[in-house]
């Protein structure tokens, strides 16, 4: 019986990529705690390993904030991010911002500039402003609540 449970777990782990509105992230308490304090812990699958490595080596100047970590935690988290990182250039950005990857831009092409500047959104880093269940791994369109109810790009 145990080997079946093991097989199921292994399958879930292998299926750790963005698909059907779910992003399954293997449990890692250190990542969740350290990367999920100021913003939600962004799934490793949303940036390439090279991008993650570069980002993790400059945490004292993390997009204008000091997010420095102890060496042990930094190594553990870097290893975790690399292991589950995206393998496609669609998830790469020289700015190291997930919101600058071509994948992100395409996924959000229908979001109007008015929505982006809504005070409840404020920043592209604020995923849960619209993806209300994102912290539970649910990024599906059913789980989207756009502040002000606007979604389609319009000019009025």
């Amino acid at each position, binding site marked *: 019986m145990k080997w079946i449970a093991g097989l199921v777990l292994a399958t879930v782990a292998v299926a750790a990529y963005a698909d059907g509105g779910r992003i399954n992230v293997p449990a890692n308490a250190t990542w969740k705690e350290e990367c999920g304090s100021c*913003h939600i812990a962004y799934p490793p699958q949303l940036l390439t390993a090279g991008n993650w490595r570069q980002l993790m080596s400059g945490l004292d100047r993390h997009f204008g904030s000091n997010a*420095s970590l*102890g060496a042990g935690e930094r190594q553990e988290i870097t290893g975790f991010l690399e292991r589950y990182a995206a393998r496609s250039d669609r998830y790469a950005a020289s700015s190291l911002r997930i919101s600058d990857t071509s994948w992100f831009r395409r996924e959000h092409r229908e979001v109007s500039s008015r929505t982006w500047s809504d005070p409840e*959104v404020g920043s592209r880093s604020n995923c849960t402003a619209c993806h209300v269940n994102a912290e539970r791994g649910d990024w599906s369109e059913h789980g989207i609540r756009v502040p002000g109810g606007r979604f389609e790009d319009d000019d009025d």
Partner: protein
Amino acid sequence: MNSGKFFIGLFCLAIAGTAQAETPATLMDGYARDAMQSTPNFAPSAKRGQHFFARDWGVSRKMPSCQSCHGNDLTRNGKHVITGKRIAPLSPKVNAKRFTSLSKAEKWFGRNCKEVVGRECTAAEKADLIKFFSNPGVKS
């Protein structure tokens, strides 16, 4: 589960329990003891802590003061000024998890003091802040 495993589990829980024995009071006392090495008659002051917390340090444009993210009522949620993420209340009065780990307190003082104040906070300042957080009293 056999009894051997049970006792190993119980033992681990006991170890974890002792590692988490810090409280806001013990953390504050520890910082106060450090402060007394240079200021022998030092005593933590909630009023000084409150002043420090509300002060505009003029270092960070988006985060000029502690209140920029933690708000001015420590018994309520704050909001990260850049990302918009909810920050749980800072006061141990309403949030029992606060100031129960020295390493966690040091990590956040380390980051946030450099960010907002532009330098490390002193042990005296940390003791004042914890005193204030534990007795937020009036809104400022």
